[in-house]
């Protein structure tokens, strides 16, 4: 093996919780070579963060390393003592974290936090350290290094903070850079900038990079090799081009099929079920219960890691050597999903909508306050059976807009006509009737479901408010719960007993149970895994086809919007930049901001040499 830089061998890690041992990673192996970029992709529970922190030998107190070694220049990091690790961390292996806001010390200026790495490892101090820090800040494309040096983290934007983290990691020219979801916490445009920064840096520096992300598109932009983690198991590892074009593991295939693409509308297929967390799952194939190609052997024997003939490509599947077996699933067809909806009567007409907030020192109501216009003069139309997507970054006003449609915002100017009537002029009875017909689904299912209520109570409450009798409620709740893909066993469960996808289904059931005409979806799939996202989108389209309702979809994810929207409204700083039929916005965007947003979406196709 030509000069392996970091060699992770057979790493198995479990966590001890409540007396039980919960395995998080099983026989994970990865060899990193100088200068290469390895992307580790996985959904929640895949163990990717554990693998990364293990590489720094920074595991929590209740973690047990069951087996394995992590070799760096001959020594096993897992068995090294703190003083040895202190010479390696930050100097030879450096890490970049997901949330730059919390990862920086709020009470120290940013420059000092970078300079202390130089002082600690390279003995560089004073003026020399300051100069070198300025150089680093320039390297990560930050203007005015002296100003940034003297700034506290809260005085910098999210993107700037992440650049500072990158500068800090690069300070000592490490051999290995570990990146844990470095762009996830950032806005879409900023994400693109940081990704391109990393790409250009990689060309300049010699470090090897391990890039962990749940976003396959981001990984595809950078990685030479890609490893796919599922439920603690490395199910596939190989050259990026091969993995993306012809994956050799059913989970990888499923994952790629579930990722929405900006290029065109196509059939989005999710992977039914949820990743198993059973401690005993490693006695057989971890993916068996969700795989479309499972046979008996998959459920009884753990598949070996098979080396594929193409070289440098492994897959943990019983059928890895017989790729034709896992290529086509029964009933799988290519083709467009989400057929364009027929245009219906206008349901919602909004004109001149503006919302203003007052923000300022609240000292007993005295003192100056600033007026913030969250929504500025927005107008649009939504017809039945149509999907209108409102896209924008954070602060664009899209969520505020959604709330005005349910009369959740107090200071609203403009007109909102529902079937020709102004909702702001409704009296109590009209409002009640309106609230039956317009529902909302929130982004975070953990936060939107009251943790103390059972599924039956949650879904039944909107009906109870309408005065529906208990018997009829039971019927309708049962029917709706089944319609969203859950079953009667879920009725008595509490939210904490459900997975993320199941919780969101409950939120959908709660919205659908009153048979609404308008459903507002505020980032309904953002908090979910990609494979689950696709199933929820499928569900939403089914429901629309069946009931003829209309959707107002709020999202920052243009790829998702591409798959389902009929019309698109692009918002920025509260105002509409551009609006029109989806096909047009995606293929011929006019406004530069729209163009920037579209360009920022990381594509699964490999970038051409540029």
């Amino acid at each position, binding site marked *: 093996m030509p000069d392996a830089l970091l060699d992770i061998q057979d790493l198995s890690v479990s966590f001890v919780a409540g007396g039980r041992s919960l395995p998080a990673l099983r026989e994970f192996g990865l060899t990193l070579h100088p200068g290469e970029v390895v992307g580790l992709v996985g959904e929640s529970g895949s163990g990717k963060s554990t693998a990364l922190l293990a590489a*720094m030998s*920074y595991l929590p*107190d209740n973690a047990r390393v069951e087996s394995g070694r992590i070799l760096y220049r001959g020594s096993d990091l897992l068995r090294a003592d*703190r*003083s040895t*690790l*202190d*010479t*390696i*961390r*930050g*100097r030879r292996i*450096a*890490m970049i*974290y997901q*949330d730059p806001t*919390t*990862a*920086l*010390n*709020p*009470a*120290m200026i940013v420059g000092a936090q970078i300079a*202390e*790495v130089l002082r*600690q*490892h390279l003995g560089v101090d004073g003026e020399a350290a300051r100069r070198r820090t300025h150089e680093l800040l320039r390297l990560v494309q930050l203007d005015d290094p002296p100003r940034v040096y003297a700034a*506290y983290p*809260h*005085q910098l934007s999210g993107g700037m903070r992440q650049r500072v983290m990158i500068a*800090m990691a690069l300070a000592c020219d490490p051999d290995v850079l570990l990146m844990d979801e470095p762009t996830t916490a950032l806005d879409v445009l900023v994400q693109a900038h940081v990704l391109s920064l990393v790409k250009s840096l990689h060309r300049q520096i010699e470090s090897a990079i391990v890039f962990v992300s749940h976003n396959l598109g981001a990984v595809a932009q950078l990685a030479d090799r890609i490893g796919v983690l599922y439920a603690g198991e490395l199910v596939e590892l190989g050259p990026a081009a091969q993995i993306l074009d012809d994956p050799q593991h059913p989970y990888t295939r499923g994952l790629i099929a579930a990722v929405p693409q900006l290029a065109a509308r196509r059939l989005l297929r999710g992977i039914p079920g949820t990743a198993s967390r059973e401690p005993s799952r490693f006695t057989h194939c971890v993916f068996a219960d969700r795989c479309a190609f499972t046979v008996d052997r998959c459920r009884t024997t753990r598949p070996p890691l098979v080396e594929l003939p193409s070289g440098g490509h492994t897959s943990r599947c019983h059928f890895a050597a017989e790729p034709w077996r896992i290529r086509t699933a029964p009933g799988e067809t290519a083709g467009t999903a989400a057929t364009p909806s027929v245009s219906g009567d206008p349901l919602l007409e909004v004109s001149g909508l503006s919302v203003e907030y007052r923000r300022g*020192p609240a*000292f*007993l109501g005295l003192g100056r306050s600033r007026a913030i216009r969250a929504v500025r003069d927005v107008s649009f139309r939504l017809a039945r059976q149509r999907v209108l997507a409102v896209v924008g970054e954070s602060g664009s006003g899209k969520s505020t807009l959604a709330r005005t449609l349910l009369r959740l915002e107090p200071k609203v100017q403009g007109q909102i006509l529902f079937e020709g009537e102004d909702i702001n002029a409704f009296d109590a009875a009209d409002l009640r009737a309106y609230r039956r017909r317009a529902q909302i689904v929130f982004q975070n299912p953990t936060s939107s479901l009251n943790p103390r209520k059972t599924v039956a109570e949650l879904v039944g409450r909107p009906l109870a408010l309408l005065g529906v009798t208990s018997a009829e409620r039971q019927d309708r709740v049962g029917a709706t719960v089944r319609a969203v893909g859950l079953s009667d066993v879920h009725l008595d469960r509490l939210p904490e007993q459900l997975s993320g996808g199941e919780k969101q289904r409950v939120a959908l059931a709660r919205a659908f149970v009153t048979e609404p005409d308008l459903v507002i979806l505020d980032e309904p799939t953002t908090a979910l895994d990609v494979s689950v996202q696709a199933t929820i989108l499928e569900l939403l389209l089914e429901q629309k086809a069946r009931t003829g309702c209309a959707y107002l979809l709020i999202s920052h994810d243009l790829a998702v919007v591409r798959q389902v929207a009929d019309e698109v409204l692009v918002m920025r700083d509260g105002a509409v930049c551009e609006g029109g039929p989806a096909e047009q916005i995606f293929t011929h965007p006019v406004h530069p901001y729209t163009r920037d947003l579209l360009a920022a979406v990381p594509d699964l196709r490999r970038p051409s040499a540029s």
Partner: protein
Amino acid sequence: MAVAFVARRLGAGLISLAILSAIIFACTHVLPGDAATAILGEGATPEALAALRTQLGLDRSLPAQFLGWLGGIPVGAFGTSTTLNQPAGAIIAERFGNSLALAATTLAVATALAIPLGVAAAAHRGSRLDGSILAASYVGIAIPDFVVAPLLIVFLASPPLGFLPSSGFVPPTASVGGWLAHMVLPVLVLTSLLTAHLLRQTRSGMLEVLASDYVRTARLKGLPERVVLWRHALRNGLTTTITVVALDVGYLMGSIVIVEEIFAYPGLGRLIVYAVANRDMPLVQGTALVIGAVYVVANVLADLAHAALNPRVARP
């Protein structure tokens, strides 16, 4: 900008004091019990009662009485003590210095003990050191002052050891040695309680800091734990400690009441117990107000210090 912040904070403090005085006044006047009857006794004639009421100003309306009282405060006039027939303000002022001596000493000693111990416990969480420190703090909190005090009196102020006085007071002008000697036991009792309290809060604050992301970053930069603790953790942990110390001033003032009573130490605490027992309203009001004011001032100072140390507030 800083000036505006300070002004706002001082203003808030003044408002707190105003509300405080209103509440104190309400407690002592709105509840049943007539001061005149309390002073003259049940057998007094209606004329005598009426005369006394006029003399005490009790025949005015409540708001008028309140404003009258409030108006006198800035000049130190708290009304006249009904049992001692002296200006309440003078009595309170005399005692205030004594209580302040106790409080300041206790605060200094407790902080000096609790903060290092709390930090050490957090840094070695789960170890035996941590366990014993925690256990000691539980003991400190659990045993009330009126149990610790008699025990200390038995051991240190009675034969056979008996080298400390068990009660009383000697002004520093008469004998510094005597003054200090009479303070030792009360301070010991107060310190044991306050240290335990402060210790637990410091420990819990430090644990939170040590679990934060930026401490993780510091460790993964290859900084030795000593540096992580001193340069990264403490800086953030200590700003919280300031808030905590200010909160504990209130706790301290409460304990002072009992401790002064036990040791017959002439301070505000003993005064308020006497005043309540004898229903001497002007004295009750005045003392309660001063005690509350100490807390308000401590908190304002703590807020200002906290803001000065917190870059998010100092440099937005």
